[in-house]
Every structure is written in C-alpha cells, then in structure tokens.
C-alpha cells in the first residue's frame, strides 16, 4: 500500500487556517477574492464582525438566489446580507474605522511580500496596466493585524516571499503574518519565522520556494 502524501493546503484549508486564528469578538475586513473564503470557516462558537469598506459592519451570509439587492454589496461588488447588530455608514466613517486602528484584522492577497513585511498587492507596475488601488493602502496602514493569504509561489513557480519587492509597494513593513498553501509565516523584527508547515512540507523544501531567508522558532 502506497502512502499518499498530500503536499500543501488547498485554498479552503488556507482560509480555514486563518479563520481558526481569528479570536472571538474580532472586527475583520476581508479583501476581494481568496480572502473572502475566510468568512465561511469561522468556528460556530465565535462571533466575528465583518467590515466592508463600502459602508457595512456585520456582513451576513450571501443572499439566496433571487434575493440579491443591487444596493447591498461588499467591496468586491458581490451581493451580501446584514446580520443582526449590523450598521451602515458612509465612506469617510468607514475609513475612519480602518485608518483609526479600530479594525482588528484584515486579510489581503499579495503579489509579493518582503522579509521586512513590505507588501505589493495593487500594481504590477507594467506601463500599459491601468493602476487601481482601492482601499488596500489604507488597510495596511490602519488595521491592527495585517494578514496575507496567498499561494506560496506564482503560477510559474517564482517565489512570492522575496528579499525585496520588485512591484510597487502597497505599504512598507506592514505585514504581520502570511498564510500560504505551504506554511504559516510570522513577520517579526528579527525576520521571517515559520510557525507551521503544511503536512508533507519540510523546511528545506519551503526555503527552496522562498527567496527571503526563513527562520525556525
């Protein structure tokens, strides 16, 4: 009998890993795309309030088909509902929450993260590309804990955790923790520390897929 070693976490498992680490009572902003998955995995005994920068605290589950409302959407422009205890507000108040340090955690995607916690996630810097920044630069500066969810490498296998970001920065020294398909990595003053590795992943393999130097606790 052959033992099948599963290499790396799936998208759902990455989201689960993050959800597991979000404390009860947290106020959380989820970026567009993969970060949105996190909402599905909050343990049932925890109450977490989700914020969307377009003016809602207390996002509920997606509406049933046919129940969508054009005027009830999240930052990704997808239809949402509101939980009990929700509140609507305008954009300046919404970013007062973000910039003012009132949101506990945000989960964002990334193009690159440097070993100093620099983040690049808004522009590839290509001359023909249309730049679009949204709320990312506000989130990384204002939110207490900035968490990244990303595949460990690009589609063509290049490291996303690098010594220095080559793409335009979203913020310098802003990332607190990185959740990839291969590992969970803390960004500390003393460098990157591997907190956990996916089943079947060893430190050497992980380092080989990472440009920046990794440390073990």
């Amino acid at each position, binding site marked *: 009998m052959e033992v099948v070693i599963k290499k790396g976490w799936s998208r759902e498992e990455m989201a689960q890993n993050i959800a597991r680490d979000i404390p009860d009572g947290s106020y959380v902003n989820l970026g567009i795309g993969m970060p949105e998955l996190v909402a599905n995995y909050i343990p049932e005994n925890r109450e977490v309030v989700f914020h969307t920068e377009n003016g809602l605290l207390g996002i509920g589950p997606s509406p049933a088909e046919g129940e969508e409302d054009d005027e009830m959407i999240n930052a990704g422009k997808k239809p949402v509902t509101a939980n009990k205890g929700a509140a609507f507000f*305008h954009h300046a108040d919404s970013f007062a929450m973000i910039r003012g340090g009132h949101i506990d955690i945000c989960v964002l995607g990334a193009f690159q993260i440097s070993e100093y916690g620099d983040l690049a996630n808004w522009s590839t810097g290509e001359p023909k590309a249309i730049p679009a*920044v949204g709320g990312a630069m506000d989130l990384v500066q204002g939110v207490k804990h900035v968490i990244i969810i990303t595949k460990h490498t690009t589609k063509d296998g290049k490291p996303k955790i690098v010594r220095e970001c080559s793409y335009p920065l979203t913020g310098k020294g802003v990332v607190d923790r990185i959740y990839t398909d291969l590992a969970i990595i803390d960004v500390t003053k003393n460098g990157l520390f591997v907190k956990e590795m996916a089943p079947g992943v060893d430190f050497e393999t992980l380092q080989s897929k990472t440009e920046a130097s990794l440390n073990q606790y």
Partner: protein
Amino acid sequence: MINKVVKTASEAVADVFDGAIVMISGFGEAGSPIELIHALIDQGAKDLTIVSNNTGNGHVGLAALIENRQVRKMICSFPRTAHSIVFPELYKNGEIELELVPQGTLAERIRAGGSGIPAFYTPTSVNTPLAEGKETREIDGKPYVLEYGLKADFSLVKCKTADRHGNLLFNKTARNFGPIMCMGAKATIVQAKEVVDLGMIDPEIVVTPGIFVSKVVEIADPLSENQLIKEERRYPWR
C-alpha cells in the same frame, strides 16, 4: 419658503458648466445617480473633472458620460472593475487623465473639502509610488503624507428619501460616498426614490441634513445598472 425639489433631472443638472469639477456618488453598481448622469449627457457640459470611486460600468451612467467625451479627467481609487470597458480604452490611448487616490484618502479629501479643512496628514500611501512628489512629515516618529481637501462645483448623488429641505436618507450600501459628496460641492444635486412631506423624516435619523443639498428630483423607479449591463444597453439609447 425653502423648496429644493425640481421636476426633472434635466432641470436639476441645467447649471453644470464646461470645465466643472463634478463628484458622482456610488461604489460599483450601488448608489450611482444614473438618471442625473444621463441628464448631464443630454445637457452636454464637457471638459469635466469627475470625482468618483470607479469609472462606470458597461455603456451607461458614468461610463456613457466618459464615452460621450465629456470627461477630461477622473479622480478615483479603482478605475479598473469587472464591467469597466470605456475608461480603460480611452486611458490606454492617452485620451483621458487619471488621478489615482487611495480610497480612504479619497473619502477623507472629500470630507475635508466639505468641512473647511484645506489639508491633512495621513499614513496612507507612505513609501509607495502614490506618495511620490507629495510632502511627507514625521509626527510622533511616524511618517505621514500631506493630502489636500477636494472641493467640487457640483455633486450628483442618489438617495432613498428626501424632503423639500433636502434632508436625506440612503439605502444600505448605496450610501457609500453620497453623504460626504453632499458636503463637498458648491451645489449638490440629488435624485431620490421618494420625496416625502417635511416632518416625515425623524430628525434623529437624518443622514444628510438639508444644508448640504441644493436640488432634489424624484426618480421613483431608477434604472438598474446591473440590468442595463446585462441587456448591453447604451446611452444615449439606440
């Protein structure tokens, strides 16, 4: 007597002049004052600077205004959305200007402009290309960027309920930039799904007090951008 209610969208936007700075509410497909924008297309003012979070969708509303070549410059945070077709095309051809502003900075600049605050410091965009050429300053050991208040000649805003004083209520996440854009313009033009008698809005729940509003027009059944995009409609209708 104070009566800010006008009969038609065309009457509401009649004063918009060539070269004006115009704020337009909305985030994605929610909260965009599509009938006011279409009236502005009919009216024809050109060389406009538009302040809006996005650049419009499909070939209606803000996208149609841009397509009709009435817009010289966009000030926005996210010009590239799923249904944005018109702006990217013009931008790549160098036919429209773009001032890219982080979303929170955009909101704060609009609020500042409406609040008599000419400039403020913010941590947002520090050490990024968007801070290039801007004054930075250390306060309590942390770096900040100086940003200036934004003021418009006109704001076009969509809301749920209004009265003749211009007191406004909004609907869910269609509130977004509406209330601060009402503050940020010399003349604020609002389309409301319903205009109610004075006194029908509880003073405790008013979101935008009438002092920030110049004109109100009732548009009882506003078009849905989502629907128009699905139907591939274009404005002017053809």
